[in-house]
């Protein structure tokens, strides 16, 4: 009989337990023990055709769910003008949905969409307008037919137009209930000036000029297939899709009308200051929390290094917990729940803006804190740690631009419509990495001028109260009356 070698057995058991425990306890002790990885971004696959009228049609097959959706991006946006009637562009877009089509009255259109869980929506931004649809893929034929009618032959029903105007009156009256809305409008007013297309909110007076004729005129000039993109994805047959779209949209002709005017970009010099003090425009309202916007007009997108802009925004204050603004205003001082800042630029205009909200008696501290952050960036630039962190974060997060397969496919179109360079995505990581040893001090000084900075404060504080708590050698305060039509009051 073989003897069991106790020592050998014990050694084996102990060794087994040791090895097992090592493989089981694979827990890192520190973050640094877990190497940072990288991912391979797959190129988006899609099919594309360009129609003779200039419309680019893109299709992405997705068969995970029985759904279909599409976006039509039309070049232009409200930057192409508004025929002299504020808000006409956005209103016209809304009526392409609300007002029915050639073959569908507004009620019939509503019923079809609601009964079939489909949607048709519109919106207008500065650089482009968009119309979108969604629904079940089994209903695609009907949905795309209705969608094409909304684009090519909207009815602009009179009754619905009047209803929409009626509803807008209420919307206008509610602006004064929100400090952020007032601050945003007031900032545009003092920055661009009354009459500029960049300060052109709808008022009850301008609303009275909107009618069927104005809407039709705007539609004729602004809704064109030239430079437009139709991007559709869903669980439908590709060939069938292109056949239907070509049939429905080939007849869409470009017929520009003359009512659109080019946008103006004016820098307002109201209430001129005789000295170098920054002006704070104050709207005195009974809010527990004051909304603050600080900044000035800046460069257009085409005049900026877009990669430096992206890195600056991340490091300075746009959506990052690690940004200078967030760390100073929220983390260190606890002054605000939300704070953001950076460059906002389009093909036509640009601005540098910081926005935050804080209780009224800490407004002076918040203004001073923002001022000191600005001074620090202009004098010293960003720290090495800050820039390296922002570069790393930007590059690691780059993959999220392609997270949604449909959005990934839409990116080239959106990049073109926005005025970014066509190879923006291709160059992004390389260009961003190349900035890792810079401190962006020169760039910061190109885009921020302390002597141009103005502020808007909307809150429960008077001009004198505010000035008492600020350094009067650096600031002056001007009161702004903000009803539907703003006007300047006195300065201190």
């Amino acid at each position, binding site marked *: 009989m073989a003897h069991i070698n106790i020592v050998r057995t014990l050694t084996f058991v102990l060794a087994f337990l040791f090895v*097992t425990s090592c493989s*089981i*306890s*694979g*827990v890192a002790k*520190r*973050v640094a023990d*877990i190497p*940072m*990885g*990288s*991912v391979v*971004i797959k190129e988006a696959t899609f099919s594309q055709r360009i129609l003779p009228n200039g419309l680019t049609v893109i299709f992405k097959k997705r068969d*995970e*769910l*029985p*759904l279909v959706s599409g976006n039509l991006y039309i070049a232009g946006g409200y930057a192409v003008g508004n025929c002299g009637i504020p808000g006409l562009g956005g209103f016209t877009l809304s009526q392409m949905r609300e007002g029915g089509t050639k073959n569908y009255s507004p*009620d019939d259109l*509503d*019923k079809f*969409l*609601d*009964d*079939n*869980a489909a949607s048709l929506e519109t919106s207008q931004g500065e650089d482009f307008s968009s119309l979108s649809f*969604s*629904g*079940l893929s089994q209903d695609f034929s009907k949905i795309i037919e209705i969608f094409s009618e909304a684009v090519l032959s909207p009815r602009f029903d009179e009754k619905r137009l009047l*209803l929409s105007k*009626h509803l807008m009156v*209420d*919307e206008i*009256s*509610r602006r004064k209930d*929100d400090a952020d809305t007032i601050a945003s409008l007031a900032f545009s007013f003092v920055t661009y000036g009354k009459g500029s297309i960049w300060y052109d909110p709808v008022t009850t007076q301008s609303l009275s000029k909107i009618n069927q004729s104005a809407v039709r005129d705007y539609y004729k000039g602004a809704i064109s297939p030239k430079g437009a993109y139709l991007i559709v994805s869903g669980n439908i047959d590709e060939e069938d899709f292109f056949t239907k779209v070509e049939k429905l949209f080939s007849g869409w002709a470009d017929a520009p009308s003359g009512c659109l005017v080019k946008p103006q970009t004016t820098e307002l010099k109201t209430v001129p200051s005789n000295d170098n003090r920054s002006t704070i425009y104050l709207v005195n309202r009974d*809010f*527990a929390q004051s909304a603050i916007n600080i900044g000035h007009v800046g460069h257009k997108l085409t005049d900026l290094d877009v990669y430096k802009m992206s890195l600056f925004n991340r490091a300075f204050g746009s959506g*990052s*917990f*690690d940004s200078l603004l967030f*760390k100073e205003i929220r983390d260190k001082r*606890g*002054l*605000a*729940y939300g704070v953001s800042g950076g460059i906002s630029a389009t093909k036509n205009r640009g601005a540098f803006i910081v926005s935050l*909200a*804080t*209780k009224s008696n800490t407004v002076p501290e918040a203004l001073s804190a923002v001022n000191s952050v600005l001074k620090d960036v202009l004098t010293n630039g960003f720290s090495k740690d800050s820039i390296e*962190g922002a570069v*790393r*974060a930007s590059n*690691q*997060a*780059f*993959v*999220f631009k*392609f*997270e*949604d*397969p449909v959005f990934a496919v839409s990116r080239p179109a959106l990049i073109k419509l926005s005025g970014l360079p066509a190879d923006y995505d291709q160059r992004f990581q390389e260009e961003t990495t190349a900035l890792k040893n810079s401190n962006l001090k020169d760039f910061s000084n190109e885009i921020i001028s302390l002597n141009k900075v103005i502020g808007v404060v909307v809150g429960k504080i008077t001009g004198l109260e505010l000035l008492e708590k600020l350094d009067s050698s650096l600031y002056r305060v001007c009161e702004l009356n903000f009803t539907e039509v703003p006007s300047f009051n006195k300065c201190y």
Partner: protein
Amino acid sequence: MNADRNSRNYSMMFVQYLNFRYLYLLCLNLIGTCTFVSSVFAVPEDYASLIHGIKKVTLDNGFRVIIAERHDAPVFNAQLWVKVGSVDELQGKSGAAHLLEHMAFKGTEDIGTKDFSKERELLEMEDQLIEEYHKHPVADTKKRLDQVLEELELVWTNGEFTKLFEQRGAKGLNAATSSDYTMYTINLPASELEFWLFMESERLIRPVFRQFYKELQVVHEERRMRTDDDPSGKLYEALLGSAYWGHPYQAPTIGWKSDLNNLKREDAKYLHTKYYRPDNMVAVIVGDVDSERLIRLANDYFGRIPKVDKPIESRPVPLAAQSGERVIKVKFKAEPEFLIGYHKPTYPDPQSAHLSLLYSILDEGRSSPFQKILVQEKKVASSIYTTEAPGERYDPLFIIGGTPSPGISTEKLISEIDSLLKSMEVSTQMLDAAKKRIKVQILSGLSSNPGLASYLGKRDVIYGDWMDLFKELEQVENTTVEDIKLVIKKYLISENRTITMIDSD
């Protein structure tokens, strides 16, 4: 239906049969067990391609992990759901669950500090001085408190925890607290799975509630933004406060201002100790991950959270019923606005599903009765909507909200709503359309990683089984016109409601 669709139906059903008709037990290693749990409930065909392949694992310590692989893009969404919300707060400590959520971003014993042992002493001193100052607010105590804070500032490395996430490519790092639960969410590149597991488990095991009193100031600002200056927020707070007498749903999740002024670090610690335990949490990961690897790592990282054997002590919660209308006018300078809240049952009562359909019938789409009659034809409303709040663990409210048209009083609009509810005919066609809309909404929600993770996580943390989504859908599908008529008669009555409205006079 074409032939292709029919054959796909058959193969899908077969797959469902294999995966969901049997209970599987799988021992992964000596430490933990994982179970693939099936339900005897059949997944509807439209969801099958999405749901097939979802795995749920329960670790030895009770921690649950749900995984759905999707390989469209090299990213994943990870959510941690904890079954603790404002309903679990002690009297006088409203806002503590939300503040605890804020604390979860402040780091751990290693992250966010240069010297934890020194910091720990200073934090204890801070707590003592705060206690002292609350009792006797004298200048000397304040001065000592400021000194301790100055020393703490030297030890803290502000924002280190969130910075680490961002540098790994995090997108949408966020969290939310509701009446019922707390949820943490993040999107990361697929290469950072172990990093997420490390960070998430570390902040569960070794959190440090630093910068508590400064963060309280931030929460006060958040309250001003969401409630004090917002007419809708004020109405909502008044609605819950008046509809839920003596019920934990009464307190706002952000906290009453007076409670916030008195919150202490120990209040957040109390909730953390009691509720942030492995059997009270579920992690959901959706995206470009390998399930096997993830399960192994989950065992390593989440498996080390100590098990707690004693069940959570629950307190009795009264019924939220009321037997008479309550009308609250909220004095506030703003345009007219209102909310009406009717008490309703929660899931699994099938009438909850009937009422879900009623939301859609009443208000969804421009051809719905509310939109068509009140907004378009009679022009008594500028806006009107239906919703449900504040939660699902207890009976919530069926809410109708809106704004009257210029020149129309709130009372007039409410009276029009009452008339409409009494006279409205509900047809089979309206009901079928509502069922279709709910289905499409859910399908659309499931199509994104965070959307799918939310559906799975919420149901699993509240009901213990993510598959409850389909049980609810079955209730929706089985609803008849008579069911709808019955719930209107039973619940949407004045004796069962609370109205709050803005009074700007």
